[in-house]
């Protein structure tokens, strides 16, 4: 009778949970973006806490019953042993059956989840996107990609994270390993990571690049494949710590570093960040320090210093310095009836003075220059999250300026400045439809204005 009562109580609790879940689902449906009002939230929270107390009490009773049941089963097995001695094969089978029943008795619900999933925790996350691009002077095209992120927590201190980029290309499919890193938490304020990781100084790539997070369909040219590395292969320590009411975060790393391009007049003096194997014994050293004076606001400074020239060449001793500053602000404002995001980053790179193609054997030298590049972006977005109309609440307006001055030799691509406006509609917190128009006018060339449409889903 006691067990029947437990089952009835469990059924009642589950029924109540289902009711609350349906209420939450209904609230989410109404807003279509997962937001509920503060009042609804507080009511649900109060109900949830009351049910949690009841559930805890029920669990305690269940555990007591389980202990009692185990003791009874043990006594039953023991009695079988006494009735049927071990040498009897039939008696042994029955005893084994009893043992099996005793050991396979359903454990409490709280234990079931842990035993089924094991001690490691794995999650397949990521995002998918589809895009249409119509750019002046180019053929319009559709594109798509799947970007699975593998997260594997081996223990509460050890985590693996890796990402693939899978996209159709030509007659086949491209599969790229974007990052693969093993991390170990040293303490509350420091973690060690080794492998292929997002360069900490490139805040856009590290935080905003996934297309369900990036508010515009394309990426800013200044920092994405521009002046800063996207990916580094090496080791890093990173973390954050409070200073009074403020917080500081940091990341320091050593990596293979970039490669200096020397064999073409158009690219001489540029740094190639896409070559992940090293070309000399000198390692790049870099990092970023961020300061959060108040919640939702961060200012950062990043750097990387390296010797990018090939070992054994006249460029081997040249030093390259990258620097960047960044700003991230997120504010919920009653005055503006919504949320404002401001993201900005600007970066500079400089390679020591050198003479490229000194003997003219490559056909463009001697070309003496101190290679400097710079670029960055500023983006402001506004979403009226505090309006009462669902449709308007799901809209987000974005404006971005981005720039790249990337021609140290004066013979390569001209500097480029773009202005982009965009409008997003959020179907869920991680599913978005984006439309944008981009004014793109490289110096001395015809415009590359573009219409961009994209949908992205994070999972």
């Amino acid at each position: 009778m006691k067990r029947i009562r437990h089952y009835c109580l469990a059924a009642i609790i589950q029924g109540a949970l289902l009711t609350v879940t349906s209420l939450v689902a209904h609230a989410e449906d109404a807003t279509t973006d997962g937001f509920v009002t503060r009042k609804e939230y507080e009511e649900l929270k109060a109900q949830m806490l009351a049910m949690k107390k009841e559930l805890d009490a029920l669990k305690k009773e269940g555990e007591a019953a389980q202990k009692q049941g185990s003791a009874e089963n043990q006594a039953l097995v023991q009695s079988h042993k006494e009735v049927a001695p071990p040498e009897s094969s039939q008696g042994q089978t029955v005893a084994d059956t009893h043992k099996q029943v005793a050991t396979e008795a359903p454990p409490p619900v709280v234990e079931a989840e842990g035993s089924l999933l094991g001690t490691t925790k794995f999650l397949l996350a990521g995002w998918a996107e589809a895009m249409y691009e119509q750019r002046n002077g180019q053929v319009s095209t559709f594109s798509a990609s799947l970007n699975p992120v593998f997260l594997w927590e081996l223990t509460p201190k050890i985590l693996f994270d890796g990402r693939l980029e899978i996209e159709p290309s030509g007659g086949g499919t491209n599969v790229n390993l974007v990052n693969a890193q093993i991390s170990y938490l040293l303490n509350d304020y420091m973690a060690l990571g080794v492998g292929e990781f997002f360069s900490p100084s490139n805040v856009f790539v590290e935080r905003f690049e996934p297309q369900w997070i990036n508010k515009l369909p394309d990426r800013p040219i200044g920092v994405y494949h521009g002046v800063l590395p996207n990916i580094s292969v090496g080791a890093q320590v990173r973390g954050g710590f409070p200073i009074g009411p403020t917080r500081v975060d940091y990341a320091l790393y050593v990596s293979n570093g970039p490669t200096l391009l020397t064999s073409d007049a158009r690219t001489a003096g540029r740094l190639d960040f896409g070559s992940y194997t090293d070309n000399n014994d000198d390692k790049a050293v870099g990092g970023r320090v961020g300061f959060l004076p108040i919640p939702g606001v961060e200012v950062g400074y990043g750097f990387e210093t390296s010797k990018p020239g090939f070992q054994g060449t006249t460029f081997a001793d040249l030093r390259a310095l990258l620097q960047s500053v960044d700003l991230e602000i997120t504010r919920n404002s009653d005055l503006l009836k919504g949320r404002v995001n401001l993201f900005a980053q600007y970066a500079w790179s400089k390679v020591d003075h050198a003479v490229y193609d000194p003997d003219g054997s490559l056909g463009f030298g001697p070309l003496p220059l101190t290679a400097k590049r710079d670029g960055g972006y500023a983006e402001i977005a506004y979403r009226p999250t505090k309006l009462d109309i669902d449709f308007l609440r799901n809209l987000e307006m974005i404006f971005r300026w981005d720039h790249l001055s990337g021609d140290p030799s004066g013979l390569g691509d001209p500097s480029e400045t773009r202005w982009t406006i965009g409008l997003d509609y959020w179907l869920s917190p991680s599913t978005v439809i984006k439309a944008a128009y981009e004014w793109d006018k490289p110096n001395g060339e015809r415009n590359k204005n573009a219409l961009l449409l994209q949908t992205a889903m994070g999972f």
Partner: protein
Amino acid sequence: MLRMLTRGLLAALLLLLISTSMNLFADPKENRKTASESSGATSSDSYMGLTGEELWSNNCLRCHNIRPPTMYGNAQWDVIVHHMRLRANITGQEQRAIVEFLKSSK
């Protein structure tokens, strides 16, 4: 090189000035709520005067929309917040407070 370094640091200081001035737009109640003002089961895990709920909102919303606690299971939240701790450089205390809030809100 020194001139370039100086320029970078000056730019960082300028951004710092801009960021602090942006506080004028802030809604003080939402961003500076103390633990005693916040209701919920996570008050015992308050950190720097912020509850797990506030840490979750402040840290996650800086980069992307926040997903409802019901979207993932407890074990999944463990992995996600562990991952995001590394990405967003939050502390261990903040990580635990956020995970506890997410689990208690399901």
